[in-house]
């Protein structure tokens, strides 16, 4: 702007100067925009790089026990994805654990988050600070401390203890994600709804819920992925129950079959399909 002014403040009418300015801003904006999009695309590519490797190696014909180097193309692994029942069972176990623990943590965490955002109450600051604590605890420590508790209580490690442990670390994630998401909203809409004669239940269903649902969905997805992914804490409290990550870790010590990559690819495709469905659904109902 100052350069335009210095080259000639009186060269033309104000209108054309404004046009020059806007064009310059547009062109520099375009380059910047392109660079920005290019960087984003590269980061996206980086995020997907190991995924390409996993999909590719599901078609690998490994020599020996480890599916680490490319040997040749085969469809054998896909013809028999459930060749190793232990792997399939481990995967089922992980999906059930993730579903159950996410459902429990979602109820507990969302109630907490909504209370923190919507209500001013004594001790709310303390609760917020307390919620951060489980996140500052390394997983190794969470796992070890929970194992100590279960041993003290005389509880046998297994499905229940895994779910308990997962809920324990999911609550904070959900509460904080939902809280961050719903805090910015205009809550006077609720008052407006009440003033206009809607009852509390109707207000909750028609106003509050639609406002917080995107935050809850995001938190649930994150939380489900966290549970499915968890290795370290589960390692401590699993007993003889084997989840998917535990199976994979044991495999790296003995033998890594390509079926691991096959099932990982199946999970990806299913997630992608759900994602596409969700997008379509949302586009049909523009709320």
């Amino acid at each position, binding site marked *: 702007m100052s350069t335009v002014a210095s080259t000639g403040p009186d060269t033309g009418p104000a209108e054309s100067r404004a046009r020059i300015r806007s064009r310059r801003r547009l062109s520099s904006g375009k380059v910047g925009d392109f660079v920005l999009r290019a960087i984003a695309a590269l980061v996206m590519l980086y995020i997907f790089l190991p995924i390409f490797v996993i999909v590719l190696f599901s078609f690998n014909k490994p020599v020996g026990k480890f599916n680490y180097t490319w040997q040749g193309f085969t469809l054998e692994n896909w013809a028999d994805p459930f060749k190793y029942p232990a792997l399939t069972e481990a995967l089922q176990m992980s999906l059930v654990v993730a579903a159950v623990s996410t459902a429990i943590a979602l109820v507990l965490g969302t109630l907490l988050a909504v209370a923190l955002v919507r209500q001013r109450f004594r001790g709310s600051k303390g609760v917020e600070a307390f919620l951060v604590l489980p996140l500052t605890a390394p997983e190794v420590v969470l796992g070890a*401390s929970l194992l100590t508790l279960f041993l003290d209580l005389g509880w046998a490690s297994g499905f229940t203890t895994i779910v308990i442990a997962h809920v324990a670390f999911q*609550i904070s994630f959900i509460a904080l994600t939902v809280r961050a998401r719903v805090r910015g909203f205009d809550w006077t809409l609720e008052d407006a709804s009440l003033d206009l004669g809607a009852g509390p239940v109707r207000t909750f269903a028609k106003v509050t819920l639609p406002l917080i649902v995107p935050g809850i969905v995001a938190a649930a997805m994150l939380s489900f992925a966290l549970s499915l992914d968890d290795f370290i804490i589960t390692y401590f409290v699993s007993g003889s129950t084997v989840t998917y990550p535990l199976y994979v870790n044991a495999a790296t010590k003995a033998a890594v079959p390509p079926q691991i990559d096959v099932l990982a690819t199946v999970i990806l495709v299913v997630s*992608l399909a759900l994602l596409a469905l969700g997008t379509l659904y949302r586009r049909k109902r523009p709320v």
Partner: protein
Amino acid sequence: MAGVATSGRQRSRIAPYLMILPALAYLAIFFVIPFWSLFRTSLSTSGGSVYLPTLTFAWDFGNYAEAFTTYQEQIFRSLGYALTATVVCLLISYPLAYVIAFKSGRFKSLLLGLVILPFFVTFLIRTLAWKTILADDGVVVSALGSIGLLPEEGRLLSTSWAVIGGLIYNWVIFMILPLYVSLEKIDARLLEASRDLYSSSFRAFRKVILPLSMPGVIAGSMLVFIPAVGDFINADYLGSTQTTMIGNVIQKQFLVVKDYPAAAALSFMLMALILAGVLSYTKALGTEDLV
């Protein structure tokens, strides 16, 4: 009408406590109590035989001093690795989160889903994939070797960089999501206003977007740094004995060596470091909002 209003207000006075009670009770039983007993363990002395060790609580702070002097190297290495990983995560996540939040139009939710998608593959399998990518006879090593970026016989696997790379990859999603959430909430009209007031794009970014996205920056940094500093899988799968982190030591002490007081002391030292880091970070960035 007045009666309804008062009873509503009275109800709302206990309502928040009823809402927070289940979650807090759960965390008290399955987080606070286990930590308390672990803390006692960290101050206990172990006696008895190797097969049947007994722990006696004795305010034994010697456990801490001993653990620190023995594993100083791993502690500082973990801090360095996790700090590097956090900074790189922030640098690569911001442009992506920005593009998704402001420039993706109707593809916004699709892109967001795509970003999350790879993280539905188990952490360990993703790390194993990196092992393949960085392998000595892999494409990346030969490509870097042919353009002279890597010396002959040079390798990527089993180096610090492989471990740091694994840390970055495995937790980058926890940087992208909070950044996106905070960016997405920014009112686009604020940007228009800054343009109308003749602010350059960069200045608009620095003065409007960056400050408003700070909650996301802070949350993301914490969500990356904390798991990264305590991790042992990346060092285990991608590193060597020269790259062991404090997590490796803690895990080994707990599950293999079974020196519980030392392991507990190390755990609490790690948490003290994390807490100090988090507090100084949030103080430096000057926000009242942690997440």
